[in-house]
Each structure stands twice: as structure tokens, then as C-alpha cells.
């Protein structure tokens, strides 16, 4: 029996080390190794996917002694909540390294950072040990910091610094919560399965732990009012950095919200559920309005992420509040599917914005215009991704958001006001499409080339999956549902 999870997890790291060890490799070699590594990782993730996950608890668990004296071990495994996210990460990192294969500026260090980040991301989703989870969670920060600081745009140093300090400050409360859970366990252990099975804290201690976790995850998600690092980081980050930041790293927050907050302090979460629900609603609406006000295409997409992640928070909060197991299942199904869909759609959007910027060297919508005629393929792909993002039926976000709203309606009808967000996001994207793609083509952009083969390879798979998930969501939902319906809270 192959240790599939560990193989998939450490393959990118091996690739990164290989690239660093080669003496003066050609740029081409670096990119080829990167693509092969990411492809192999995707194969690993797919085999994990086909192994599947049983209903309750975790499957494909791999365990290795680490520090038995304090009950810490190397433990990894998956369930229906983490499996889609692992697959999503593997897909996004593959398209990211394909997209980045045109990079000429210090490709070796850049690719090594991307691959290190892939290990950190898959590790965060598969870790079943408190310390291990925290380790991967933080390693992702470091590699993202260096990606933004080294390869970002004009004001990258400041943005990278802000990102690092902000999110480090944000993630340290989680460390306290993990320590609290550890010290509260009857038999001191960092085994997350034990914490889920038997939530170790209760009463005020559980509430404090929950507050600490909420701070951490709200920064990561990001939820209003702790979102201010996001637009700065996104605008300055290189395209691939944005794709991974939005597509994968924001999910650390929502995944943690389910895995830690909901599963390890369920009673406290139920008590505080309304507060979290309000947080989600405010986040979703604020994100939508803020997106509407942007003139910079990349900032706009960044703010729609705040909106979409707000829906996930709403879904998880509803799952915590409701007493009806069937409603809870629907809410969680929606929330997890929303994470998956958001990764695909926003990943595609950031790639497309990056392609526009590569060509026009601007992201200001006012300066663009008429691109649909100049670069029709790029234009229409963007239209498709934008429609997916605004929740058009038949595309990835629709089944997810539909389930979230359905559950919200039966659990706390007042919160359905969040549905307004859809309308605002629709307005935002229609405005963006009009300014950027419609109208008469401008003289300035006449010579703009359309999508190249490399760009097709990068954005194509995401769009196929977006349509596939929208038309037949059951291929993902099936695996999610098996776990969420067996979830005992």
C-alpha cells in the first residue's frame, strides 16, 4: 500500500529541492521540472480522490511517531471536506506553473517558492495533528511573503511586509487555541481526530479558544473588518501569487473555520453562531459594494473574493446554529462546494487579469475598452469566468450559493438579505465587462495578441471544471455529502 497522501504532499517539496540543487540549470529545465512535479502531484491528488473518503471520520490516514512525549505525531489523512480542497490545490498549482513558464527573472527561486507553497497548502488540508497543521499554515505565509516581495509590482515591499505582519499577528491566536485544546485534553495529545471526537474544552475556555480561532481565520478568509491586507497584497502580488492566494490560501481560513471552530468547539460556536453569521453577512455585502467601487480590475476581483468567502462564513454559521441535521448538511455542502468553486473561478479570473496586464501594462478599466473585438478569445473567456463568478446557473458558483441560501432561509430567514450581494456582484461584473471589453476597440490596443497556447493550457482546465461543476455538481458534492451528512456536532 503506497502512502499516497504523504507522497502527494511531499512531491512538490522534492521538486523544489531538486531545482535548488541543480548547478546552474537552464530556465527551460527549471520550468519543465516544475510542470512535471505539479502534474505528478495532480496525479497523486487524483488517486487520493478515487480512493475516496468513507462517511464518518478520516480516511487514508498515515501516521508516524514524532514527539510521543507530548503526544505530537506526523498524522495526515482526508475526509470529504478536505479532499476537494486537495484536488483544487493540485489543479491550481499545475495551471499556475504552466502559466508562469514564460518567467525569465530568477525563475529558480520563484519556482522553488511556488512548489514549497504547494506542499504547505496540501499539508494544511491534510494535517491531522495540531502542530503539523500550524507548521504548514505558517510555512505558506513565508513563501507567499517572498513571492510578493521578490516578484510583485511597484509597491511590493510595503505590501509584502503588511501581508506578513498582518497574517502572522492573525495566526498566532490559533497557536494559543491549539495549546488550549492540547492542555484541555484529558490525555494530552495534538491528535485533531481526538479533539473532534471529544471536544476537550467547554464553557468559558471553549469560548476563548473559539474567539482566538475566529480572529485567525477571519484574517485569513478574510472577513470584514480584518480584510484590509487583501487588496494591497493582491494588487502587488505577481499573477501566480494572486491565483494561489485567492484560490488556495483563502480556503485555509474557511477550512479552519469548519475543521477547528465548528468541529472542535461546537457548543461555543452554536452560542456565538449569530455573531459569526452577522460577520458573514456584513463581509459578503461589504465585499460586493467595495468591488462595485473599484476601477482597478485586479482589486475588483480581490473584493469579489471577500464577497464569496462571506457566503462560506454564512454557510458554516448556519450549520452551527441550526438544530436540524438535514439543514446543517445542506449548509455545509454548500459551504464546501463554494470553496471549491471559488478556487476555480477566481483562479481563472486572476489569470485572465494577469494576461491583460501582461499585454496592456495597466489594470485600469477606464484605459482599456473594446477588448472583445481586439482579443476575442481572451474576452469571451473572461466573460464566461465573470458570469460564473456572479452566480449564473449552470456554472460552478450557482449550486453552492443556492444551497447556502436554501439552508439560511430555513435556519435564520433574516440573514437571507445576504442574497443582495449576488445582485451587486452582477452589477459589478457587468460594469467591468462594459468598460473593459465592450465598446469600440481603441487604437492603442490594436496590436494586442490573443491567447497563446500556454495561456490556453493555463486557463482552459479551470473553465472546463467550472462548467463541469456547474452542470453536474454531484461529482464533487457526492464526496462532500458523504462526510457532511455523517458529521456529528
Amino acid at each position, binding site marked *: 500500500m503506497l502512502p499516497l497522501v504523504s507522497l502527494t504532499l511531499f512531491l512538490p517539496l522534492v521538486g523544489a529541492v531538486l531545482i535548488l540543487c541543480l548547478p546552474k540549470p537552464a530556465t527551460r529545465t527549471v520550468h519543465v521540472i516544475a510542470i512535471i512535479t505539479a502534474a505528478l502531484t495532480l496525479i497523486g491528488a487524483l488517486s487520493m480522490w478515487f480512493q475516496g473518503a468513507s462517511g464518518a471520520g478520516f480516511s487514508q490516514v498515515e501516521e508516524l*511517531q*514524532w*514527539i*510521543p*512525549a*507530548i503526544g505530537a505525531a506526523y498524522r495526515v489523512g482526508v475526509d470529504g471536506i478536505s479532499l476537494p480542497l486537495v484536488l483544487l490545490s493540485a489543479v491550481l498549482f499545475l495551471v499556475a506553473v504552466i502559466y508562469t513558464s514564460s518567467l525569465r527573472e530568477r525563475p529558480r*527561486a520563484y519556482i522553488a517558492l511556488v512548489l514549497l507553497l504547494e506542499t504547505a497548502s496540501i499539508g494544511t488540508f491534510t494535517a491531522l495533528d495540531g*502542530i503539523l497543521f*500550524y*507548521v504548514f499554515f*505558517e*510555512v505558506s*505565509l*513565508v513563501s507567499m511573503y*517572498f513571492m510578493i*516581495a*521578490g516578484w510583485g509590482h511597484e509597491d511590493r*515591499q510595503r505590501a509584502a*511586509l503588511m501581508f*506578513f*505582519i498582518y497574517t*502572522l*499577528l492573525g495566526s*498566532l*491566536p490559533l*497557536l*494559543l487555541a491549539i*495549546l*488550549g485544546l*492540547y*492542555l484541555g485534553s484529558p490525555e494530552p495529545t495534538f491528535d485533531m481526530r481526538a479533539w473532534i471526537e471529544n471536544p476537550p474544552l467547554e464553557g468559558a475556555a471553549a469560548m476563548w479558544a473559539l474567539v482566538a480561532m475566529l480572529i485567525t481565520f477571519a484574517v485569513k478568509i478574510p472577513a470584514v473588518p480584518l480584510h484590509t491586507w487583501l487588496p494591497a497584497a493582491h494588487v502587488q502580488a505577481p499573477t501566480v501569487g494572486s491565483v494561489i492566494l485567492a484560490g488556495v490560501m483563502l480556503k485555509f481560513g474557511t477550512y479552519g473555520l469548519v475543521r477547528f471552530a465548528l468541529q472542535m468547539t461546537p457548543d461555543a460556536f452554536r452560542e456565538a453562531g449569530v455573531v459569526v453569521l452577522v460577520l458573514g453577512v456584513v463581509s459578503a455585502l461589504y465585499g460586493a459594494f467595495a468591488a462595485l467601487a473599484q476601477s482597478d480590475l485586479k482589486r475588483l476581483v480581490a473584493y469579489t473574493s471577500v464577497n464569496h468567502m462571506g457566503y462560506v462564513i454564512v454557510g458554516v454559521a448556519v450549520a452551527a446554529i441550526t438544530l436540524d441535521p438535514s439543514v446543517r448538511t445542506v449548509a455545509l455542502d454548500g459551504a464546501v462546494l463554494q470553496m471549491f468553486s471559488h478556487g476555480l473561478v477566481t483562479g481563472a479570473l486572476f489569470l485572465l487579469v494577469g494576461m491583460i496586464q501582461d499585454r496592456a501594462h495597466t489594470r485600469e478599466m477606464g484605459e482599456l475598452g473594446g477588448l472583445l473585438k481586439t482579443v476575442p478569445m481572451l474576452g469571451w473567456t473572461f466573460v464566461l469566468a465573470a458570469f460564473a463568478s456572479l452566480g449564473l446557473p449552470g456554472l460552478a458558483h450557482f449550486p453552492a450559493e443556492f444551497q447556502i441560501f436554501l439552508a439560511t432561509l430555513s435556519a435564520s430567514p433574516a440573514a437571507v438579505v445576504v442574497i443582495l450581494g449576488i445582485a451587486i456582484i452582477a452589477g459589478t461584473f457587468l460594469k467591468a465587462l462594459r468598460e473593459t471589453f465592450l465598446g469600440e476597440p481603441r487604437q492603442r490596443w490594436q496590436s494586442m495578441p490573443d491567447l497563446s497556447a500556454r495561456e490556453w493550457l493555463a486557463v482552459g482546465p479551470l473553465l472546463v471544471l467550472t462548467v463541469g461543476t456547474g452542470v453536474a455538481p454531484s461529482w464533487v458534492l457526492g464526496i462532500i455529502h458523504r462526510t457532511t451528512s455523517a458529521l456529528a456536532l
Partner: protein
Amino acid sequence: MARDLALLIPEIAVLLTAVGALIAEMLRRPQIALLVAVSGLIVATGLTVSLIGEDTTVFGGSFRVDDLSVWAKLILLPATILAIFLARVDVRGTVREGTVYSLLCFATIGALVLAGAGDTMFLVLGTLLTGLATFALVAYPDTDPATEAAMKFFVFASVTGAIMIFGLSYWFGAAGSTLLADLPGMDTMPMAVLLGFVAVVVGLGYKASLVPFHFWAPDAYEGGPLSIAAYLSVVPKIGALFALAQVVRDLPPESGWTAIIAGLAVLTMTYGYLAALVQDNVVRLLAYSSIAQSGYFLLGILAVGASELALPSIILFAAAYAAMNLGAFAVAANIGRTLNDFDGLGRSQPLIGIAMVIFLLSLVGIPPLAGFVGKFLLFAAAIDVQYTWVAVVAIINSVLSLAVYLRLVVPMYRQGNVVVARTDIWLKAVLIIALTVTLLLGVFAQVFVGPFA
């Protein structure tokens, strides 16, 4: 008697090494002095390994052979070897090269005496022994700044040492014995306990550069040779902190000593990083950073006697700290003393750049590096004894420390001047050893934590 001496074999080996190095120096054979010092310390380390897990005392309880003192040897002896490598680069070819190696060995004996102290007199002996050897080391270059730094260091040491001895006289009067193990007998005299404790904290706190007894540290680090700064920031400091842990093990818990330690921890961490934030001199920045790091040790000391995590956390962090701090100083020895020297380092010397980033991130406590594992256990120990607020302050300080260390990292990746690194084999050896420990300590943490559970 024979049993007692057998348990002290590592200390005796270090003493013989120091004497051997001195004799070689008297014969004007500095190369041999170096060889004797390094091989003697390696032998002493090897001799210590068989003592792991021992928990006993020798000479009527006055010296302890327990986890703290055994691990002190396993950490400080290799750290001294690395410091000797660094010193070799600084003093090669100078007039009394061999004395430096010999003095480093003597100072290390002092630190080991402190770490195993079971008697108040050993506290005095240990501080004097490390002190006398290190004053001379700081003054070694015979330049004005070095002499001034050594003078400051010396005056500070005399005053704090005198205060400590004065306070210890209270303990002797109250307990009727100089043994630390007899301290619990004073529980009827809380004032005497507290007075003595404050005095001990002054004496050991100076050695460990806790705020407010830290003033000598940045000057001494900057004035003396860099290798001596690296040594001072690791060996005597860890010795003094382990001694503090030995003292509080036997203090009556109701005397309120934990409040004093908690206050000092908060003060030391916060002041250390705030002061580091405004330094332009890399050595001073690292000096203040090492002051702040002492504050983290205090989190573990807070929990001594009440939490099983206390001793493992202190020991593990000591090992991590020794590696990452020596590593950072070794890079500074390679590159230069001001922030400007680091401009563009990451681009022109990628390997040294990566190493420095790893040392600094480890000092912040970013996983999976050594510093994280140590700090993680220290936080756990503090929370375990209900000092959650100190852990919270420590965590906030970790964020502050990120700002401090990024001040070094950011210029490293700027387009800058081409940095020429010294290509000394000794510096390289230190870098590689420190880097390996910093990277892998987390994976093998069980080795340090194992015997306790």
C-alpha cells in the same frame, strides 16, 4: 568520592582542556592550543552522553547531575566549539591567540557550574568564573572601544555580584544552610525568601542580560570581537538561565517569585525588541534581540516545579537558541556590522542569504524551524501554570520581532552592492552546523523531550 568524581568527568575534562590549551600557549604553539581545546571539548561532550537520564547530586548535594546540568553540557560544549571556530577567524595571528581558546574553556566551566548549581556558593563561583574569563576576552583586541566595553562589563558585574552575595546571606541566615535543597525550610520567612530571590535575580539576570540588568550587553557585544559577542550571547546566558531554573525548583511556591519572573519576562521581551527596532548596527540589533530572547526563557522558568513541560521547554529552546543565534552571528562575521553591508546579500550570495533568512525566521519562531518548537513548548508551559497573559504578551512580541528581523531581510533582497563574503573554512563550518541544527531540531525534538515524560 570516587562516584562523585566519576559523575563529574565531563567538567574535569573541560578543566584539563583549558589547562592544556594554556600550556600549549605558553609554549607559543597556538595551533596546538586550538587543537587541544576543540578535541578536548569534543571528548567532554562524548563523555556526557552516558550521563543522560541521570538524576542525582554529588558532594553532599552541592552540585546536581540532572537533566538541566547534563543538557547544559550537551548544548554548551558544542556551542563553545563553534565559538572557538568563530574566534579563530577573529584572532588568528595575534600575539596571545591561544589564551583566547583557553579562556573560552574556562568561561564554559563557569557556565556549567551555574547550570548544575545545587548550592548558593556555586552560584557565586559560577558567575565569578565566567565573568573573569569573559572580561579579558572582551578586552582582548586592546582597542579603546574594547577596553571601554570590558570596563563597563566589569563594573556591572562587580556591583550585581555584590548584591547577589548580600542577598544570599539572607537565605543563609534564614535557612541555616547554603544548599538550594534546604530553601523550602524558609517558608515561615517570606520576606527573607523574596529579598534573597530579588538579589539572585539581579546577579543571574545581569549574566543572562535580563532587562533592567542588560545595559552592559550591547556595548560589550559591539566593543569586543564578534566571536566573543556570539559566545557571550549564548554560553554564559544559558548557564545563568539554567541556574535560575535550579534555584526556583526549590523555592516555596507561595512566596510570589513567579510574579517577579513574569514581570521580568514581559519587560525583557518587550524592551529588547523595541530597542532592537531602532538599531542600525547589526551587532547591536542582534544584541537586543538576544536580550529579548532571554525573556522567552523566563516563560519556561515560570513553570518550573508546576508543569512537566517546563524543563523540556527550557532545554529545547536553549538548544534551538544556541544554534540560530550562533548562526546569525556567524553570518554577521561573514558580511559586516552595519545594515548597509547587508544590501543585496541575498542576490549576490544566495546561499548565505538563505541561511541568514532561516536563522532570523527561526528567531521569530516561524515553523518548522528550531525556534518555533522551543517557543511553542515555552508557551505551553506558561499556559499550563495559568500564566496565559504572559504567553499572550510573548506572542505579540513575536510579531514585533518579525518587524525587527525583516529590517535585516528586506535590504538583503534589494538591488544592492555586490557583497563579498569571507570564505573562511571556519565560518563555513559554523554556518553549516548551525543551519543543520536549526532545520532539523524540530524533527528530532523527541530526543530532548523524551527522558522527562
